[in-house]
């Protein structure tokens, strides 16, 4: 909003002070700047100490490429699974009313705050070879999830899907349910109305949720290493590779970190309209 020049500001002091400038007490400014430095300096450090000249060689090394490829594939697969299961789940939470819905919603969002390692342990207990479901799965189909690439996807989905569900549920709640009624009066079944009216209306929310879920899956460490282990080429994703490289080859660790940083910045840029347009 701009202040029209011809009309005097209603408050006499407002005229002398440039618009937007507020006097900041030092007691707030100092910790604020410290906080800023604390958040930004490590990222700068990463950029300053990056072995820029050796970077091409490092990044094209087979281990890095392997980890990057696995990370991209498993994060994308986890996002796909999250979309497939999470969008209908979000619809159920937003559009239906049943006893215990609030409790269910709380359970769905629990992995958002649960330490990922705990998630990994829980997954092992359920889907492990001797787990409640895993035993049955092994006996019936011969499939075992732990310590496989599929296990990586499972761990990442567990951690990432709540982000998608929350984002889509919010979009669904904001979308006018009467559009679905209008669709019904035109002969659309509830499924058709969902597919052809509701989904397009909440597409931006689904997109944002998917990007968030993908970014979360890409950075997943705790649940993955617990449930899927750390086997190069099979379950060793980028974050795991970074952690391991820090002990043997710090230069490679920095190079890998740079890639993850670049991805994070890209995600932020992609979501800037949604998340950074707050006044």
């Amino acid at each position: 909003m701009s202040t029209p020049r011809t009309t005097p500001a209603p408050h006499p002091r407002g005229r002398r002070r440039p618009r937007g400038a507020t006097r900041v007490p030092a007691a707030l400014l100092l910790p604020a700047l410290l906080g800023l430095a604390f958040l930004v300096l490590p990222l700068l450090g990463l950029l300053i100490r990056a072995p820029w000249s050796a970077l091409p060689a490092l990044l094209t090394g087979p281990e890095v490429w392997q980890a990057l490829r696995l990370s991209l594939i498993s994060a994308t697969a986890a996002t796909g699974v999250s979309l497939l299961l999470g969008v209908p789940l979000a619809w159920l939470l937003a559009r239906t009313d049943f006893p215990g819905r609030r409790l269910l919603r709380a359970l769905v969002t629990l992995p958002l705050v649960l330490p990922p390692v705990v998630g990994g342990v829980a997954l092992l207990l359920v889907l492990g070879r001797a787990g409640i479901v895993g035993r049955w799965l092994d006996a019936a189909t011969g499939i075992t999830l732990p310590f496989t690439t599929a296990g990586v996807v499972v761990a990442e989905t567990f951690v990432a899907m709540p982000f998608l569900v929350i984002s889509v549920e919010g979009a669904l709640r904001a979308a006018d349910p009467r559009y679905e009624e209008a669709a019904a009066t035109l002969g659309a079944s509830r499924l058709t109305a969902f597919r052809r009216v509701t989904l397009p209306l909440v597409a931006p929310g689904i997109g944002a949720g998917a990007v968030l879920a993908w970014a979360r899956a890409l950075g997943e460490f705790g649940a993955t290493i617990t449930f899927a282990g750390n086997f190069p080429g099979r379950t060793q994703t980028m974050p795991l590779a970074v952690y391991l490289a820090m002990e043997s080859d710090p230069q490679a660790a920095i190079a890998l970190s740079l890639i993850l940083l670049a991805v994070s910045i890209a995600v932020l840029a992609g979501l800037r309209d949604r998340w950074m347009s707050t006044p």
Partner: protein
Amino acid sequence: MTTLDAELRVGRGAFTLDVALSAQPGEVVALLGPNGAGKSTALRALAGLLPLTDGHIALYGEQLDSPADGLFRPAEQRPIGVVFQDYLLFPHLSALDNVAFGLRCKGLRRAAARAEALPWLERMGLAEHAGRRPAKLSGGQAQRVALARALAVRPRLLLLDEPLAALDARTRLDVRAELRRHLAEFEAVAVLVTHDPLDAMVLADRLVVIEAGRVVQTGRPAEVARRPRTDYIARLVGLNLYQGVADGRRVTLPEGQVLATDEELTGPAFVAFPPDAVTLHRHRPETSARNLFPCTVAGLDLHGDRFRVDLAGPLPLAADLTPTAAADLDLTPGTRVWAAVKATQTHAYPA
């Protein structure tokens, strides 16, 4: 055969709707009533968006809702078209795809649905806007797209919820005339919900006036306008209305006042007269008018080029004056005046 035969009973806590509705082919019925009267509930029940708690809805002899038989056909299985108050055009679809939506739901492929939808837009004079998204349409255009979308599925029952309420006054006039033309061409039954008496009178063949969930009057618009039976309708059509007991050419009101009329009646009766039949005088006039009442001015309001004077007294009434007459009388709230009404200008009819 009656095309639409409905007993709409819906209970919602303290509010109950109990409205009988029937219509012949080609008839346009308006549900007219104040806000909260239950008009929208009735429309939602007809549309299948809200199940009845009791009663029934039959269309061309086919039951759509009958709680006693455990039968309820939801909206998507009814041969209906609905024009919603704020149109609810799908914002992500072009005008053409909005109109084609219902046809696609009937199983038509995209190209076929569009080919069938386009003539509907042409009929509405919107062919050149076919590719536009609803956000790029004006209010009047959006209304016509909504009508085309509802008509394109060839409904046997067309439902319109306050179809003109979202339009500004100027657009409203054009769209109302156009809507009237389209409704006249529509062969099946149309039910219109509105709180605007003008919309109802212009668009409908028959009015069903609803107050507090009950039908208070039905009839042809001219009949309802001439012989209102409740204060709500009298106010809508701008008449002074009193209910009393007639004995010859006199109607005695519950509070004891007597109104002289021109019609010979006995028993419970209404008396109505327009505000411009009332003349006001500062002093008790020597007049042939047989209805003469002392009043106090309660309020003044400019209505078009007329002053509407609200009068309190033994007989509360509204009078219309020219601005000159109002100035000559020097009326302000609290002014004591005499109101005169000629018996020949009143209209009495049985209650």
